């Protein structure tokens, strides 16, 4: 039995609190010290011809540190010179020995942190061919999503070659020093394409019934096993539920047969997933409650004997700890929570959950990857900049008195990061609580309460960094003159502005924050002015109460400030709630019982309404002139600069904080 690194968790506070997470497990012939696994995640940080970069090594090193001895998986590598298997422009390659040194750097970085280096083989199938005009699959089934390339059916020779490429790439992984091997067979990648009756219509030995459709997978498992030997644990990631009923995908029962077949073919562990990128139902967005998918892990445990790991909406340690205790699963796998905070499990182990920067399940990371952009994180400004010294918190050359106006996400992020650098930092908040615009934004339904987690995190960081907080204090030009800070940061957030169309006695005009915080009540027929996130939030909040809602927005589409991987959820929910949307429209006139909307084609529509909720925002720059007059260094950040998203507020705050 092999034990690569020895870990003793007993001295740490969470070892007793989460005993199931911090106990060893045997996978194949390898003992893993704990039940934590960083799941393979593309990051688009490597060169576009597949060479590993220092940025990717630094990214992985942080995550390896985070798993505190557990499994750290590198992004899936593509394995063919033709690049059919490449699904992401910055995906690492393993189709030639020339890639081994780069892959070794990743393995070494993981080992430096005494973690288990897991190497993933990933042919992206119908999601691949990112840099060529087509992609490969078992059958040439058209794409539902326009972002993907037309599929070219693989010949028998192509299939044999592909299996060989898996084995060759596996050998390179072993030569690079990895401890474990993983095959990706999920979400629409090649192995899953062969398994699914939606995408596999072959009539040869690699198609037909579920057993025939499993042959490609089992051939790969056997070929890889032959190459890596019996002592290297082999994992496969498989869909337990494709969620493709609308196009005739596999039944959940068929999916469990794939699990059995994989086990029989020789895998030592199965990672459970659900849904494809083409699924029309949500799987991992914020509106899906945490732990929703655990029933699939349970099904897997009832089907196979090998250990079961699972990610997907398991962001907090309580759920997986209990699931392991219950025998629902064996290993807590995660990707987005460790994009948001690479050290998340380490902080949990050390008894500092308040230091965990929480993922808000917005899927910006995915949206970026599909648009050929490097990984970034909505809430973690340092993500993908781990190797860049300019992005780190370093001691200030000169210690300044920093006055931050506004205790929202931008102000708090700036406060703690600048305080950590040695500055004397004062945050002034006009309200009696911190949180700024997130205080009401988090009142919106469908999981937005999770947004407030970032405020709790920032409060804790400000406390630890000894930031001076002045609640209930409105800052005027005189306050600034009295305090005379060296640096002024204006993070007051945006100002909500009513429509210019005037008012009437019959229609009540109120602001989105006042509605969301319950300060005001609306009538039954409500028109929302503004189609960005605040407008969508308040529309859903009121629609949940059974009110008749319409949205009037200037933009061509709703949610310009919501990332593309999340906006579809809101659009779907608005449609389900029968919210009427007038795009590229204006409120022209407010009458006694209705509002005149000037819509597309210059058409005027009289919409019955008793309330207008304004959700359009403008920047707030008033205090800048005071700073200029007093000759104080001043920064305007977050929504006060340009109304945008929580992400922009955090990123603005951090970047300002590390530069003052």
């Amino acid at each position, binding site marked *: 039995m092999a034990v690569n690194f020895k870990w003793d968790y007993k001295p740490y506070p969470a070892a007793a609190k989460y005993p199931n997470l911090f106990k060893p497990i045997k996978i194949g012939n390898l003992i893993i010290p704990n039940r934590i696994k960083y799941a393979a995640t593309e990051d688009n940080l490597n060169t576009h011809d597949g060479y590993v970069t220092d940025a990717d090594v630094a990214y992985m090193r942080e995550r390896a540190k985070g798993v505190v001895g557990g499994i750290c998986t590198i992004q899936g590598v593509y394995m063919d010179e033709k690049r059919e298997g490449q699904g992401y422009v910055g995906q690492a390659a393993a189709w030639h020995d020339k890639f081994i040194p780069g892959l070794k750097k990743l393995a070494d970085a993981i080992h430096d942190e005494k973690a288990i280096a897991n190497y993933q083989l990933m042919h992206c199938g119908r999601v691949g061919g990112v840099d060529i005009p087509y992609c490969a699959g078992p059958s040439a089934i058209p794409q539902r999503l326009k972002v993907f390339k037309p599929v070219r059916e693989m010949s028998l020779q192509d299939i044999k070659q592909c299996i060989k490429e898996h084995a060759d790439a596996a050998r390179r992984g072993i030569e690079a020093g990895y401890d474990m091997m993983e095959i990706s067979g999920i979400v629409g990648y090649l192995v899953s394409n062969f398994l699914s009756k939606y995408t596999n219509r072959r009539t040869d030995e690699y198609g037909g019934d579920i057993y025939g459709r499993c042959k490609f997978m089992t051939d790969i498992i056997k070929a890889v096993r032959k190459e890596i030997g019996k002592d290297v644990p082999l994992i496969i990631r498989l869909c337990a539920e494709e969620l493709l009923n*609308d*196009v005739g995908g596999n039944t959940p029962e068929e999916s469990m047969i794939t699990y059995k077949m994989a086990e029989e073919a020789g895998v030592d562990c199965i990672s459970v997933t659900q849904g494809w990128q083409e699924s029309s139902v949500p799987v991992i967005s914020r509106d899906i409650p945490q732990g929703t998918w655990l029933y699939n892990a349970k099904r897997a445990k009832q089907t196979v004997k090998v250990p079961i790991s699972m990610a997907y909406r398991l962001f907090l340690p309580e759920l997986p700890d209990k699931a392991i205790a219950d025998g629902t699963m064996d290993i807590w796998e995660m990707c987005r929570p460790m994009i948001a905070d690479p050290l998340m499990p380490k902080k949990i182990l050390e008894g500092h959950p308040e230091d965990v920067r929480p993922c808000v399940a917005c899927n910006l990371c995915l949206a970026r990857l599909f648009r050929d952009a490097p990984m970034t994180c909505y809430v973690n400004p340092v993500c993908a900049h781990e190797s860049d010294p300019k992005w780190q918190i370093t001691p200030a050359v000169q210690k300044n008195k920093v006055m931050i106006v506004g205790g929202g996400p931008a102000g708090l992020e700036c406060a703690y990061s600048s305080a950590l650098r040695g500055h004397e930092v004062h945050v002034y908040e006009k309200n009696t609580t911190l949180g700024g615009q997130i205080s009401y934004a988090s009142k919106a339904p469908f999981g937005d309460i999770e947004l407030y987690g970032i405020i709790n995190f920032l409060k804790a960081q400000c406390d630890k960094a000894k930031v001076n907080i002045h609640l209930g204090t409105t800052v005027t030009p005189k306050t600034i003159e009295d305090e005379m800070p060296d640096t002024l940061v204006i993070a007051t957030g945006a100002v909500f502005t009513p429509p210019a169309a005037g008012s009437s006695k019959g229609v009540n005009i109120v602001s989105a924050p006042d509605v969301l915080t319950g300060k005001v009540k609306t009538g039954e027929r409500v028109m929302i002015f503004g189609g960005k996130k605040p407008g969508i939030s308040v529309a859903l909040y009121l629609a949940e109460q059974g009110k008749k809602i319409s949205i009037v927005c200037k933009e061509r589409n709703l949610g310009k400030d919501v990332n593309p991987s999340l906006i579809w959820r809101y659009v779907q929910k608005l449609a389900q709630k029968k919210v009427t949307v007038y795009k590229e429209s204006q409120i022209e006139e407010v009458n006694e019982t209705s509002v005149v909307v000037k819509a597309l084609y210059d058409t005027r529509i009289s919409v019955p309404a008793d309330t207008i909720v304004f959700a359009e925002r403008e920047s707030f720059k008033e205090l800048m002139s005071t700073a200029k007059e007093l000759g104080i260094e001043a920064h305007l950040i977050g929504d006060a600069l340009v109304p945008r998203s929580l992400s922009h507020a955090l990123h603005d705050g951090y970047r300002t904080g590390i530069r003052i």
Partner: protein
Amino acid sequence: MPINQEDEMRKLLSKFDALGNITRATWYEWRQAALSFLPPGTNPMELVLKAWEVVGHDTAKAYFTALDKSKPTFLRDIAKCIVNSSTMMGETAKIVDGRNPDEVYIQWDRCPWPEFARRYGASMEEDVLGCDKWFQTVIADVNELFNTKVKLETLHAIPRGEKVCVRRLSIGV
């Protein structure tokens, strides 16, 4: 000032009608431009059928998200999509029930396309076969994606001098 909703609707419809006509005119003008670059003697039908095939693939993608194979209304929902596409282009179309759940008819009572074909000197048969190519491409793609055996047949065509266009949609096992 109270607005005249009827007047607003009338103006909107007029703009919509003009937009449809501009789209048709643009189609035939592009056809003219493309033909001018092709060698003399090229059969316009080849160009037109190819163009409708390209359109058909794109239309199919729009239908993919509106269809659900697991629903018993799958065939009727395809017909609904076609009726929607047609009415958006200023045609008058409706669904007519078939003799059993495995078939449904679509009937067009009005179609402005032949008038434009005449105006731009295109043959009426180009219109019939072009339209057919569009629908056949859509249906082929739907069958590919959903692994179904939907069949579309053109039974009557206004450009051929008939009063209505009728197409039969049926699904096999």
